[in-house]
C-alpha cells in the first residue's frame, strides 16, 4: 500500500477503535468470520445504496445472494473447488443477454450495460489479457499496444472488404455477392491469420528494441504506436504514388461480418451471417463469439503462465540479471512475450473491425494504448481475474458508464438540478474520459500499486521492490 493508503487505513482503524471495535478485537476473530462479516457489511451497504439511489427490484437480492455465496463459502477447500467461482461467473456471463433487461439499476451508474457495450467490453478484455502477457508477466512496459490492434483491424479490412478492387478472391466469406471485387476471406480464417501476422510484426519490432530496458523500451514502443496509425492515416496515397493501401482517413468500410454460411446454418441452426440477424440476435451472436475468444485467451494465458516459458517471463520480471544467470535466454523469452501479446491484440483488432464493419485510423490514438494499460493496472497487473475486471469496468465506463454518471451528476447538481444547483451549464462528462482514466492511473499507483485484485506474488513484488531498481537508487553501473 502506498503512503496515502496507509494513512486512510490508520484513520479508519482509529475511527473504529473509538467506536469500541479496534484492530486487535478484529484480528482476534476467526478468518472466515472476518470474511463473512466484511462481505455482509459491504453487501448491505450496496443493497442500501441501490434501494436509495437506484432502481430496486428483486434481482438485487439474487445478486447479493450470489456475491455472498461466492465470497463466504471457502470453495477452495472443496473438491474441484477452484473451478466453482469461475464457472459461476461464466454461466452468468453466458446467460447475460437473457436477464440484463430485468436487472436492478445501480445508483449513479444507472442500468446494467447494454449488449453492444458488452461486446466492446469482451473485445477490450481480450486486448487487456494480451497486454497483460507483456506488462504483467514479463514486466515490459508497452505503450504502443494500439499498433497491434490497428494491424489486426487492417488485416480484416484488407482481406474481408472490397479494398483491393483489382483482385477478386473469395474464400468462405458469407453474405457476399459472387461478383463483389476485392479479397473476401472468411472472418474465421482472418482471425488467426491476423493474430499470426501481428505476432510476426511484434517479433520484428521486438528484436531490435527488446534489449533496451524499462523506460527506454516504453518510449520505443510508444514510437511504434504513433508511427503505425500515421501510416494508416497517410496510406491512401503513399508518397504521391497513388497506391491506396489503407483508405486514409476514410478508413476501410464495409468489412464483412462473420457467419457460418448457408450449408452449416441449415444443418446446425448456427447463423449464416451475423450481419443479417435481427438486432437482438445480432448482438447475442457477436457477444457469445467474443466470449469464446475471451475464454480462449484466458485458457492460453493460464497455460502459458504455468508453462516453462511463463515461469521464465516471471523470472525476468522479478530480476533480469538473476534470470539470465540461471540460464533464461533474455531476448528469446522477451520476444515470445511480445509476440504472444501481439497475437491476442491482432485477433481482437480483427474481430472488432468485423463487429464495427469498419476501421478508421482515428481509432488508434496513443490514448487507446493507455486505456488498455489502465485496465491492466487498475484490475491487478499479472492477475487474470483482476485484468478481466479492470477491462470490463473501464470499457463499460467509456462506453456508457461515464455518460450515465454525467446524466446523474447534471440531473442532481447541474442546471435545474434536483439536489443543489452547483454548476449552471451541463458538464459533458464523457468528454473528460481520458482525464478520468489518468486520474485512476495516478490514484491506483499511489494508493494500491498492485491493483484492485492483485496476484499475491505481484503484490509482494510491489511492496518489497524486487521487480527492478527503484528510482531513487539508480546510480551504479548495471542499473
Amino acid at each position, binding site marked *: 500500500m*502506498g*503512503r*496515502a493508503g496507509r494513512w486512510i487505513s490508520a484513520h479508519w482503524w482509529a475511527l473504529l477503535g473509538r467506536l469500541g471495535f479496534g484492530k486487535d478485537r478484529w484480528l482476534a476473530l476467526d478468518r472466515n468470520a472476518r470474511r463473512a462479516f466484511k462481505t455482509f457489511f459491504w453487501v448491505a451497504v450496496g443493497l442500501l445504496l441501490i434501494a436509495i439511489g437506484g432502481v430496486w427490484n428483486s434481482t438485487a437480492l439474487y445478486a447479493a445472494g450470489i456475491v455472498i455465496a461466492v465470497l463466504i463459502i471457502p470453495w477452495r477447500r472443496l473438491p474441484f473447488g477452484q473451478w466453482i467461482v469461475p464457472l459461476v461467473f461464466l454461466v452468468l456471463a453466458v446467460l447475460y443477454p437473457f436477464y440484463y433487461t430485468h436487472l436492478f439499476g445501480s445508483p449513479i451508474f444507472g442500468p446494467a450495460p447494454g449488449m453492444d457495450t458488452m461486446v466492446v467490453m469482451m473485445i477490450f478484455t481480450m486486448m487487456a489479457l494480451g497486454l497483460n502477457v507483456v506488462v504483467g508477466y514479463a*514486466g515490459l*512496459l508497452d*505503450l504502443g499496444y494500439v499498433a497491434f490492434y490497428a494491424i489486426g483491424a487492417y488485416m480484416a479490412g484488407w482481406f474481408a472488404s472490397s479494398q483491393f478492387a483489382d483482385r477478386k478472391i473469395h474464400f468462405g466469406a458469407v453474405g457476399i455477392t459472387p461478383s463483389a471485387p476485392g479479397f473476401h476471406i472468411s472472418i474465421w480464417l482472418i482471425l488467426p491469420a491476423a493474430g499470426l501476422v501481428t505476432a510476426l510484426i511484434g517479433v520484428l519490432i521486438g528484436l*531490435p*528494441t527488446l*534489449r*533496451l*530496458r*524499462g*523506460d*527506454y523500451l*516504453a*518510449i*520505443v514502443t*510508444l*514510437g*511504434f504506436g*504513433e*508511427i503505425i496509425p*500515421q*501510416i494508416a*492515416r*497517410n496510406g491512401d496515397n503513399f*508518397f504521391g504514388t497513388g497506391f491506396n493501401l489503407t483508405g486514409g482517413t476514410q478508413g476501410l468500410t464495409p468489412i464483412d461480418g462473420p457467419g457460418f454460411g448457408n450449408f452449416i446454418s441449415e444443418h446446425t441452426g448456427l447463423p449464416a451471417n451475423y450481419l443479417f440477424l435481427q438486432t437482438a440476435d445480432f448482438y447475442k451472436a457477436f457477444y457469445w463469439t467474443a466470449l469464446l475468444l475471451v475464454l480462449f485467451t484466458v485458457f492460453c494465458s493460464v497455460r502459458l503462465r504455468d508453462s516453462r516459458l511463463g515461469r521464465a517471463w516471471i523470472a525476468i520480471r522479478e530480476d533480469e540479471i538473476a534470470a539470465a544467470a540461471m540460464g533464461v535466454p533474455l531476448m528469446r523469452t522477451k520476444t515470445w512475450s511480445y509476440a504472444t501479446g501481439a497475437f491476442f491484440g491482432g485477433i481482437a483488432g480483427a474481430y472488432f473491425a468485423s463487429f464495427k464493419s469498419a476501421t478508421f485510423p482515428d481509432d488508434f490514438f*496513443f*490514448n487507446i494504448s*493507455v486505456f488498455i*494499460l489502465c485496465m491492466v493496472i487498475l484490475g491487478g497487473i499479472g492477475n487474470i481475474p483482476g485484468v478481466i475486471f479492470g477491462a470490463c469496468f473501464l470499457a463499460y465506463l467509456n462506453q456508457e458508464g461515464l455518460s450515465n454518471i454525467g446524466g446523474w451528476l447534471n440531473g442532481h447538481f447541474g442546471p435545474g438540478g434536483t439536489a443543489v444547483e452547483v454548476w449552471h451549464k451541463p458538464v459533458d462528462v464523457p*468528454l*473528460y474520459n*481520458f*482525464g*478520468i*482514466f*489518468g*486520474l*485512476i*492511473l*495516478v490514484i491506483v*499507483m*499511489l494508493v494500491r*500499486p498492485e491493483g484492485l485484485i492483485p496476484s499475491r506474488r505481484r503484490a509482494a*513484488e*510491489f511492496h518489497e*521492490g524486487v*521487480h*527492478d*531498481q*527503484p*528510482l*531513487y*537508487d*539508480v*546510480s551504479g*553501473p*548495471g*542499473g
Partner: protein
Amino acid sequence: MPMFAAILVGLLLVWLIVNVAKDPADFVTVFFIGLTNGAVYALVALGYTLVYGILELINFAHGDVFMLGGMISATILTAFGLEASASFGALAPAIIVSLLVAMVACGALNATIEFVAYKPLRRAPRLAPLITAIGMSFILQDIALAWKGPEYVSLPAILPRSEVFRVALGGSEVVYTWNKLIVVIITVPVLVALMWLVQSTKQGKAMRATAQDKDAAAMMGINVNRTISFTFLIAGALAGAAGLLYALYFTQVRYDQGFQLGLIAFTAAVLGGIGNLPGAVLGALIIGFIQAFNEGLAWHSPGSDWTQSIVFSILILILVFRPEGLLGERTPEGA
C-alpha cells in the same frame, strides 16, 4: 551498423544538397523556420533532460505543462488587448509580464506534480512513476480542455512581421522577419541563465551532485528532496517560457498539442544525449531543422503528414543504435 547509419546520413546530405542547388533562397528561408522551431523545442527538451538527469524519469506530463504555459500566455496577452503589429513600447511590457507569469505558474505546477505524483514513489519500481506521469499528462490535458474547450485558442499575431533583412539569392529573395528573430532573442538569454544556474551557482552544484549520486549528495548535506523539487521548478519555468514563445509565434494553442510536441522535444533530448544540457539544445536544433526541411523543401520531401513518423523513427534508431545520444555518455540503459 555504422554502415547503415552512414548510408542514412549520406542520403540525407544528398537530399539537402540537391535542394540547396535547386532553390537556395527557399532553402535558407526554411532554415530560418527550422531555427525558430528548434529554439522552442530546446526550451522544452531542456526540461526533459533536467528531470531525466536527476531522477531518470521520463516526465510525460512535461509537454502538457508546456501547453498550459501557452494557454496562460495566450490569456494574459489577450488581456493586454494588443492588436496585430503593435508598437514595440506596447509589446515589450506585455511579453515580459506574460513571460514571468507563465514561467512562475508552470514552474509551480511542475513542482506540484512532482510532489503529488512522483515523490511518494521514490522507492517504488521504476515503472510506477512513469505510469503516474502518463496519468498526470492526461489530467493536465483535461484541465486545459475544461478551461479553454476543445477548439484552438487563438490570439492576434502581435509580433511584428516586418523584415529584419532581405537578401537576393539565386534569383529570388530571402526574407527574415522580426517575429522569428524575437523568438531567438527571448530563448538565448533564458538558455544562458540556465547554464549559469547549473554551472556556477550553489544550487546548480547541488543539482549536479544529486544527479550523480543521491546518497552521497545527501551525506554531503544536500537536501535531496528540495533539490529535486527545485529541478522540477526550473524545468517547468522553461516549459512556461516555451509556451509563451509558441503562443506568440504560432498564435494558436490547443489542449492536445502539448503531448505531441513534448514527444518531439523528448526525441530531441534523446538525440542530444539525455541528461546533457548542451546536447538537448543541439538535438532540438537538429529536430527543428529536420521538421522544417521535411515540411518546407520542394524536392522530394515527405511533407508534414509524415513529420511525426520521421521524428519517431529517429527516436527509435537513436535508442536502438546509440542510446547515449550525440553528446551523452554511455549509460547502463544502453547496455
